[in-house]
């Protein structure tokens, strides 16, 4: 396949993606738009988890905690003083927070930075641990963050959560951040830093023998991932426009882990594609939780059935196809051509096509 042709495909895909975004913003109904935007947020989160789990080989289960930090930071920075006064009826808000209000983008950046700070503070001790100990310690930290948020009534409004966040997470914002994150990840993994991370993943001892500062690499990777998780959490908060500590349980980390594993640990395009597929599947399969009439028997709604399917899916993938959708490979036009899909000139949806533009 000639490169010229590939470039043409890339341009077509990019234009299609841009058109899709415009169409989404102006034509989609509220529900579809929400699901579509959720895809972008999950893509950001999956990429950030993949950076740690897939590329650096550290099994972290603490993502929900960093998302909570990001979401709360951003919410507290963007909410107007009046809104805050309305929310804090059990205990007044801490005076130094009451009148703070800054625009969304700096707040988003601050959310990422605060989450990164937490990531650094947690990572510096925790990353001395390995494998399952690291997993359980990060899980522990995220639980601690959640419990602390629940109890800091004067700052986070405790279990009541925050309501009425400004709905800043529009289609262009979330997809814009998702595209930036994807591009960032692609350049990161192509850099010598990214190669060093992969070396740590493949063989820590060999990497150390080659003169890499393994511990420092791990901390930087973990901190970067926390930054992205914080941004993702902030976007999620401003999309749903209400946050509370119960949102950020292990369940949330599980959803993201599901996307990373299905997409292939160590594949950027895999994470993005799986984020779109899983998010849509999760919404499409919602009927499973509702009442069903299966001719043979009737049910009055079986809440939980949807997650049963996803758990089984996760286990099947891990047991029978460990590489997930993409393994550790990236999407490319040649790959699509090899599978015989390309000649028809119909190359997936815009979201997937965009990925190809940079791969």
């Amino acid at each position, binding site marked *: 396949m000639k490169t010229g042709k590939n470039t043409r495909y890339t341009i077509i895909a990019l234009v299609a993606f841009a058109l899709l975004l415009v169409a989404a913003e102006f034509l989609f109904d509220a529900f579809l738009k929400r699901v579509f935007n959720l895809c972008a947020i999950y893509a950001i989160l999956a990429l950030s988890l993949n950076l740690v*789990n897939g590329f650096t*080989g550290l*099994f972290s289960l603490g993502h929900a905690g960093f998302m909570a930090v990001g979401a709360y930071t951003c919410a507290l920075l963007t909410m107007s003083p009046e809104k805050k006064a309305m929310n804090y009826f059990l205990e007044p808000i801490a005076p130094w927070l009451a009148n703070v209000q800054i625009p969304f983008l700096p707040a988003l950046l601050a959310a990422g930075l605060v989450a990164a700070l937490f990531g650094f503070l947690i990572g510096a*001790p*925790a990353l*001395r*641990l390995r*494998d*399952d*100990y690291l*997993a*359980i*310690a990060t*899980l*522990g*930290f995220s*639980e*601690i963050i959640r*419990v*602390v948020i*629940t*109890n800091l009534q004067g700052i986070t409004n405790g279990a009541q959560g925050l309501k009425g966040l400004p709905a800043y997470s529009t289609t262009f914002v979330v997809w814009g951040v998702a595209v930036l994150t994807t591009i960032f990840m692609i350049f990161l993994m192509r850099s010598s830093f990214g190669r060093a991370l992969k070396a740590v993943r493949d063989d820590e*001892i060999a990497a150390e023998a080659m003169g890499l500062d393994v511990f420092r690499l791990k901390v930087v990777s973990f901190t970067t991932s926390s930054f992205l998780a914080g941004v993702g959490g902030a976007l999620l908060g401003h999309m749903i426009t209400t946050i509370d500590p119960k949102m950020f349980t*292990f369940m949330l980390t*599980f959803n993201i*882990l599901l996307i990373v*594993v299905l997409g292939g*640990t160590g594949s950027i395009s895999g994470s993005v594609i799986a984020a779109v597929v899983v998010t849509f599947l999760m919404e499409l399969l919602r009927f499973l939780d509702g009442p069903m009439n299966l001719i043979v028997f009737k049910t009055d709604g*079986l*809440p*939980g*059935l949807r*997650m*049963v399917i*996803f*758990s*089984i899916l*996760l*286990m099947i993938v*891990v*047991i029978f196809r*460990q590489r997930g959708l993409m393994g550790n490979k990236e999407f490319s036009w040649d790959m699509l051509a090899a599978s015989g899909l390309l000649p028809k000139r119909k190359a997936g949806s815009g979201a997937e096509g965009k990925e190809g533009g940079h791969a």
Partner: protein
Amino acid sequence: MTFTLFLQHLANALSLGSLYALIAIGYTMVYGILRLINFAHGDVFMLGAYLAFYGITMFSLPWWGALVLAVVVTAVFGVGLERVAYRPLRDSPKISVMISAIGASFLIENLGIVIFGGRPKGFPVPEVLSRVIRLGAVSVQAVSLLIPAFAALILAVLLWVVNRTKTGMAMRAVSTDLDAARLMGVDVNKVIAFTFGAGSLLAALGGIMWSFKYPNLSPLMGVMPGLKCFIAAVIGGIGNIMGAVLGGFLLGFIELMTIAFLPDLTGYRDAFAFVLLIVVLLVKPTGLLGKRQSEKV
């Protein structure tokens, strides 16, 4: 704070600690042999409690009959879980096995929601056990005394099995070196299945006794005790049965005593265990009674 009040809290801490110890043993046994955190252990605990619940309410069995039946069924379930979710991945990277374990845990929880219903159920505690006994100035439920006694009995049996029987010897061999044990003619699969069976049995017992003391069943009831008991096992030194017991008691005591003497911290109750875990991991990563393992290159 009077001495009687202290004794009262001590009695409560003793039974909570025994429950933690029972569940922590299951984690430690599985980890000792497979180097695997059985994330689904807390959900097996939940399953045991629900089976006993249905044994009593649906089949009107006497409580001890339901207990025996639930424990046996849960043990079989544990063996099946290992066969389906863990055995195919025995030679895979650790992360894969752990993802499978997390998947299994979510599967059991959500199946629990589908089958048992998400609404919490009240456990019918037999009258014999809920009776309040007065010991001097301290009044405790009969079950709070029964739990430590029962836990001690089970621990004695378990230690006898591990240290004195041939199966126990095989278990120790597999935990020291799986491949070498296989070469020596130990049926590794059988030993692992036995370990999972025994661990699930203990989890079910723990779950049922937990429900006697805290009679509130929900499909997610196993999550927090599960995490805490894993932490107890790590604190004591994972892979070491006495360590799990020590960790369980330590955690039970610290949790209840902190709440009793510093009531302001009650909201942070679920975080204690994690803070303790992180401190122990950073200071003595192998736990209080754990042996140091050097890494082979």
